[in-house]
């Protein structure tokens, strides 16, 4: 683990527009600081977040992923987060069965009022992923042949 001190994890956050995106906005308005490693992709709702996007993130070199939306009962669309929660239960189970490292996906509920929770979530996740090290295991698989294919396509 000592070799990971220089390692800057790449983390993508998939968040819903109404709660977590707004919560992260509040983190900004409150001028709370957090690590630069996380980049946010905005979705209308956690219900929109396709599990394939999470897989593609790891394939493309992400070391960790954050998925966050509204707390139960707070969904702007009533139940998108409940659907998402179920999908995540199943997805975690599939990944774990296949031996994918599910510690690298951090799920969370961050409301529009929880600016400081967002900062903590980012900082904690960055620390966790840093401790886990780069997700070389998955990226090694991704690099094989896949690069060729990608270039061809491009």
């Amino acid at each position, binding site marked *: 683990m000592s070799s990971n001190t220089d390692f*800057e994890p*790449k983390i*993508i956050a998939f968040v819903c*527009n*109404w*709660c977590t*995106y*707004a919560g*992260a*906005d*509040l*983190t*900004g*308005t409150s*001028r*709370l*600081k*957090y690590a*630069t490693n996380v*980049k*946010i*992709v*905005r*979705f*209308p*709702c956690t*219900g*929109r*977040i*396709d*599990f394939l*996007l999470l897989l*593609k*993130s790891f394939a*493309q*070199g*992400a070391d960790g992923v954050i998925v966050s939306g509204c707390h139960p*009962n*707070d*969904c*702007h*669309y*009533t*139940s*998108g987060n409940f*659907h*998402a929660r179920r*999908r995540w239960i199943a997805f975690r189970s599939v990944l774990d069965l296949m031996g994918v490292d599910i510690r690298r996906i951090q799920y969370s509920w961050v*409301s*529009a*009022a929880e600016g400081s929770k967002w*900062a903590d979530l980012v900082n904690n996740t960055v620390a966790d992923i840093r401790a886990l090290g780069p997700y070389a295991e998955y990226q090694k698989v991704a690099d094989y042949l896949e690069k060729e294919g990608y270039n061809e396509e491009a």
Partner: protein
Amino acid sequence: MSKIGVFICHCGENISATVDVERVAREIGGMEGVAHAIDYKYMCSDPGQTFIKEAVKKYGLDGVVVGACSPRMHEPTFRRACAEAGLNPYLCEMANLREHCSWVHEKSEETTEKAIDLVKMLVEKVKKNKPLDSIKVPVTKKALVIGGGIAGIQASLDIANTGHKVILVERDPSIGGHMSQLSETFPTLDCSQCILTPRMVEVAQHPNIKLYTYAELESLEGFIGNFKAKIRLKAKSVNYSTCTGCGACIQKCPVKKIPSEFNAGLGTRTAIYVPFPQAVPNKPVIDRVNCNYYKRGACKICEKTCQVGSIEWDKEDEIITEEVGAVVLATGFDVKGTDFFPEYGYGQYKDVLTGLQFERLASASGPTFGEIRRPSDGAVPKKIVFIACAGSRDPAKGIPYCSKICCMYTAKHAMLYQHKVHDGESTVFYMDIRAGGKNYEEFVRRAIEEDTVNYVRGRVARVYEKNGKLIVKGVDTLLGGEQVEIEADMVVLATAGVANCGSEQLAQKLHVSYDPYHFFAEAHPKLKPVETNTAGIYLAGACQAPKDIPETVGMASGAAVKVAALFSNDELVREPVVAVVNRLAPPLYSTCVGCFMCETACPYNAIEHEEIKGRDGSLIRNSARVNQGLCQGCGTCVAFCRSKSIDIQGYTNEQVYAEVMSLLND
């Protein structure tokens, strides 16, 4: 190849202080498909917007990315600018360089690199954006106001006076709310009833207002401009069209010992009752929980008394449906009871009161006709202690916020007490005196200086009863932490203002957000204080946070203007962020195979079955179709679709895929 224009904002120094904006513009300018990239001090300013408009024309841009603040702030601004320059507004996206980057990171290489990545991500997204047309929906020009306190009354009157219909729903048998319970109001000490009741009557008589008392919202479906509200009219057991409101039934009702809600439990009422003499409507309802007939099957004295035969024993709750275009939430607040305070006796001491109970004691229409008397023995208290911040500003009690009105009403209570009991002695224990407001500070000074109220800065640790007195043990923190012990005859707790009971359930029915204390959440703490995150639903008064009467009335008028503005057009333009099921050329017609998983997933019942038929009329396949009027654009269906046959405009699979890829492909 795309021709995308990128505009990086300094936001004064808000972004440029930590992000090297020039480098961002330079590097993005080198990206494939980017035709033009600049940075400027204030992109949202008039000259800033002009830069965008000119660039759209000059370079023939087919996409715009503005790297500035949160899209939740200025997306509409920049999209409008693009539209004015002739570019489809949905080809404009924002990269959040302020809230998600410059404000949360220190100035560093990494911060600038993150900013570049964020802009890149949106450039890649915009490349996949498609021009979209706004969806136009008709607006039902009728408003629903929930809650008939001063906020609901004011909002209803203001909307009604613009010429639009209003439906006002009140849970209790009368409108009036907490304001009708108050004795006098700060800072002028004018009688609350005197200023409120004329407005209550105006509501009842207004041709544009339909009042439903003793009614609650059952459910709300639909969306801005097109809500469908189901309202439960609770059975009053009295026929209002024949009842004359003579009150004979009330006189004769044998069940007389029910604690009166209006008097905050200090007085009693009958089972058939009008909450207070000035009630609107001034006709009784039967409280079925306490009525002898409903409890035991016998009595019916009121029926015998009623000369017009208005009692309806078998009346059942009725549910009506109203179509409305906007909703104003004005459900108000509640105060904690004395039983919330273990240290002040768990509510077991009769002479420990809440501020609201003291209002009733001080009110001329109250149980003691305005004389301050102890509930326990009816004696006039000679020594009275007021405890401010009872529960409020106390994280240990789960109420870290300031209830805002207590400092003022406590000063008023002490003043009223001194006016009524000339030889009385009053003490106020306070944490800070918060008297911000026109003539407020002067009012408190008057209490202290003219009415000689003894203000002690400190907390009260304990109140207990001994020999008919209430022993108040506190501390005076201004005099070196001296312990203070007062033998009082009455203690009044300025208990915390909290969200009204049922507010959480109501919020969930309406799909509006609420804060950790169950107060409804405004869309923006400063700039959108009366809107909620749900379009078409507005807030008025203390259901958003504790507030005093002037502020409540101001907010109610604000909400009314929002509703009037919405109703000023026949059609409402909606964002085209909706789901679409693909349609293809024959023989495929659509890749949708009609498993209808999306149908169970949709929270809005927006998925319809469509039979795709060939030229000969034979059924080719069943496919899903989205009702664009009902779809709210959550996209849950999209993530469920195995064959990717359904997609959501504005967040298409191609767009989000491109975003994710751009973040990782170096």
